[in-house]
């Protein structure tokens, strides 16, 4: 295998995460070593309670690890403060959640524009990019619709548009199809695959659905807070 000269996109060494203290302490991650290169499409699998969501939250800087090291593009994430982690999310990461997590009573356009607003993008650029992103997920006619007016699949596509409008280096998807039926599941996974292949965005999908995992070229199986297997499809 020919390693690229630059540091890997994600590099974990002995990462642990413990919830609670004393007797009530629960170790969700018990020492994870994982390396992910830019451009990969990785499925993180495992039964519920295995720690796969915790792993993704830590990787996405939504949660902080208890111990171990986490390097993102060579940056020591565990040394960053809250503010710097926010900025890392702003400029490098995108998220798609099981529960969509769109702002209520807010149009698709405004939802997708929001990350650009925090980046300080000008009004015209925001509008142009948001429309382009919503068009690329197949919702050019739903610009003014609020989440309540959209189906689950449509909401998830708005969320995907919001995640990729900033062209992040990594897109984290936590059970993105958990609330969707099999047809829309296919649509959503197609979208993620296209982002990975066409735009070169690294995609990490947490799922317990084998069908979803087939879209990924690499599958990491987590069990009881440890990596049980790490398989790359040929």
């Amino acid at each position, binding site marked *: 295998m020919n390693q690229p000269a630059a540091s890997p996109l994600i590099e974990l060494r002995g990462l642990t995460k413990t919830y609670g203290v004393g007797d009530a302490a629960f170790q969700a991650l018990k020492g994870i070593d994982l390396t992910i290169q830019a451009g990969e499409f990785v499925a993180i699998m495992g039964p519920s309670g295995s720690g796969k969501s915790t792993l993704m939250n830590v990787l996405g800087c939504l949660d902080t690890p208890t111990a171990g090291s986490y390097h993102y593009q060579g940056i020591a994430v565990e040394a960053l403060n809250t503010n710097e982690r*926010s900025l890392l*999310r702003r400029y490098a990461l995108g998220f798609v959640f099981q529960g969509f997590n769109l702002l209520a*009573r807010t149009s698709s356009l405004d939802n997708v524009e929001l990350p650009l607003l925090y980046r300080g993008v000008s009004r015209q650029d925001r509008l142009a990019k948001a429309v382009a992103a919503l068009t690329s997920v197949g919702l050019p006619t739903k610009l003014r619709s609020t989440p309540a007016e959209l189906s689950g699949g449509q909401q998830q596509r708005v969320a995907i548009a919001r995640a990729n409008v900033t062209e992040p280096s990594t897109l984290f998807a936590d059970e993105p199809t958990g609330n969707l039926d099999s047809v829309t599941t296919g649509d959503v996974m197609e979208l993620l695959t296209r982002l990975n292949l066409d735009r070169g965005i690294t995609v990490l999908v947490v799922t317990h659905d084998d069908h979803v995992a087939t879209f990924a070229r690499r599958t990491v199986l987590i069990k009881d807070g440890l990596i049980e297997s790490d398989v790359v499809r040929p």
Partner: protein
Amino acid sequence: MIWNALAIALREIGRNLTRAFLTVLGIFIGVAAIITMVTLGQGATLAVKAQISNLGNNLLTLRPGAGFGSRTASAGVPHFTEKDATIISEQIAGIAAAAPVRTASLSTIYLQNARLSAITGTTPVYFQINKWNLAEGRFFSEVDLRSGAAVCVIGNTVRTELFGSDNPVGVKIRIGKAACEVIGLLVPKGQAGMGDQDDTIIMPLSALQRRLIGKNSEHDINQISISAQDGVDGTALITEITSLMRQRRNLQPNQDNNFNIFDTRQIAETLGATTQLMTMLLAAVAGVSLLVGGIGIMNIMLVSVTERTREIGIRLAIGATAREVLLQFLVEAVTLSCVGGLAGIVLAFGLCAGLAKIIQVPFNFNLQINVIAFLFSAAVGVLFGYTPARRAARLNPIDALRHE
């Protein structure tokens, strides 16, 4: 970054107009209530003070009967004589003047206008004692008093009812069964709390006695108005007048006084204290309403805290810093509080102006209470709008997102 936060905050307000409206409403009502109550309360205090100073300083009024209260009955108690007034002014040092007063209620007619008026028969010093000033014409004189001339000086209410806005001086009106020439019009004193002082007709005592009601007894004087000289101790004066009157009315040591002396300064002090108390009471009530408004705001903010915590989680996840999120919430809270506060000030201004007219008290814009009410409400709004947000923004983004 400030502009960004402002833009985001205004957008967020626009998306949640119901929540914004309820928040603003709480502040709006609280501010309007406290300003209106305090302003009107102070207006009433001012009105009472003005009224009292109109009554005349150092004014003592000698009246038959034991005084106020359950033993006020003056039936059967002898009234005073004109001589009583003369003797008081002559024998007691420190008295500026004393005027005997005979009152009656008689119909007054001018052309087709008729009404029942309070008639006061007295001597010329009465005008100085009671601080009446002339708007038109002249007061009656000692000559008028001696001759029993059919002349009178009228208050503004009587003038308005009988003459409208015409000049009444020189016109003859019918009082009871006699014609009487109006020779003077008094400057209005206004009314508040103590009845309409301008509803009065003042004429020479002799004219009232001879021409209108007849003199059937020496003891026909209802009261004696006495003014003390400046700087004279009212209490000592009252003691002296009391002992003089006991002697003149042949009261034995074991008998109670069958007259009383009414001191305007005491009344002034009492009324002043009472209205001040009322103002404080009103302010307290208004403060409670502001508090209730504040609790209303708090409820709205706390009810929406779950939704807003998730909103904060979403914003943090897509890359907002905690500072940006807090700034947004701060701007939202300040904007809503200020809008509510300013609207409350505007409403209070209208309410004060209107109500002051209706209840006839002066309306003075009180900057202090406006500022206090505004700042307090803004503080409440900001506190309850900002504090929950601060807690939420300190969470890990994932905990904020999962908030139930």
